[in-house]
């Protein structure tokens, strides 16, 4: 490896040995998955899209002149992969119109539905919050989902998104407010929020 090291553990120039590239991918793949989660269609498979990003990562890393720009570069790849998948799905929907429900949404089986039946209330609630988070406006859901990646700092998020840290903090605060409001609405009995009776609440 040649060139000056960056905080990503990569260098500025020269080919990366396979092991270094592998390590680089392992370091970044979780937050890349979070980006995909923020942009991909609900019915898309996260691992499929991440695999696609991995292939592009390997094949195009040599084109990246400034390895310090790795995070924004990876983010762009992930967003493009998610949007291309969404476009492909929209094209396919034309042939699947009979399956659409009244709202124009696909009436495809929710892959998580089966799991929910078996899962605990805790998991059902967690999934409900995630659905709400993914439905937030783009500018807010992306930093929020990135923040949910363990170990990712606000500074790293700001580098990834190319925005000042103060902007990230403001967006995160607004995203959380929106999420709070929606969670409050879901708490009402008619909303379908997973209710639990007092008797089922376990003592701490």
């Amino acid at each position, binding site marked *: 490896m040649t060139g000056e090291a960056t905080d990503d553990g990569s260098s500025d120039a020269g080919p990366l040995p396979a092991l270094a590239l592998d390590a680089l991918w392992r370091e970044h793949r979780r937050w890349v998955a979070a980006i995909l989660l923020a942009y991909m269609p609900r019915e898309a498979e996260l691992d499929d899209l991440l695999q696609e990003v991995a292939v592009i990562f*390997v094949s195009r890393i040599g084109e990246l002149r400034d390895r310090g720009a790795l995070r924004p570069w990876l983010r762009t790849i992930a967003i493009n992969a998610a949007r291309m998948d969404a476009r492909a799905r929209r094209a396919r929907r034309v042939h699947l119109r009979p399956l659409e429900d009244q709202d124009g949404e696909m009436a495809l089986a929710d892959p998580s539905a089966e799991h929910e039946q078996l899962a605990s209330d805790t998991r059902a609630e967690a999934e409900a919050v995630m659905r709400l988070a993914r439905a937030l406006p783009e500018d807010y859901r992306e930093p929020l989902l990135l923040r949910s990646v363990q170990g990712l700092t606000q500074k790293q998020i700001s580098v990834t998104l190319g925005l000042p840290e103060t902007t990230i903090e403001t967006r995160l605060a607004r995203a959380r407010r929106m999420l709070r409001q929606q969670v409050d609405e879901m708490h009402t009995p008619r909303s379908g929020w997973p209710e639990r009776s007092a008797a089922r609440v376990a003592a701490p």
Partner: protein
Amino acid sequence: MNDDNTLDLLLGRILDRRASPADWDSFATFAQARPDTWGQLLTALRSEQGLQRSADIELSVADLVDLPREATVASLEPGSDTRGTWAAVPPRVARRARRPWTGWAAAAALALAWAGSTWLATDGSAQRAATGLRGINGAPVAAAPHAEPGAASAPDAAPSDLGPGSRDEAPVDPALLAQAGNTAGPRLRDAAAPVGDDLHGDIVGQLPLQLVSSVASADGNGLDVVYVRPVLERARVSGMYSLGFDDAGRLSPVSIQPASLLLADN
């Protein structure tokens, strides 16, 4: 900045565990003036916990997605030396390399089913059919003509290079097959993963090659052929596990006995 925005920022810092003493004081002042502040903190904590749990589960998928193996990339670029570095693959080729084994596994399964049925039909040996050796996706595997079940394994047995289009059967020791498990490498990676590093096994056998396509070469010298070369690998691992969920809905590894893995595949 209005009070709502200030409260949002304070709540954010509390959730991120980076609130300063001044932030805590400000929050206490808010809570005294507006009792609903506590309710907001409660909802914020609940949402954050739910989001964190869900993200842990959803994003854990990422830990299972590795870079495409070097061999795959190298195979897409004939003549390129990719040892030590990852090859630069043209984007179009790279797209085709996505999940390279999924299509091939299906093709190999069909090929094996065909080869197996042909072999059984021509050989007609009920005893050998009853050995029940099965390969990818349950298709019969052609065993070595003189291999005895339980015979000494040959770890150094090199896969025979049959060449494109050949229908010869590679020597496959049934004992090795049993040790290698009833799964092909990629499928094994899907079903379970060894504790520790990725699988890098020794090649212990090769299944019949399957011709996919052939065209006359542009320069008139021979044919350009595309074929599937399925190989069997054997590796020693410290354990096997699959990913499941515990009572709290967290992703957790669950041990798998090799026997149950074999049964699951049958």
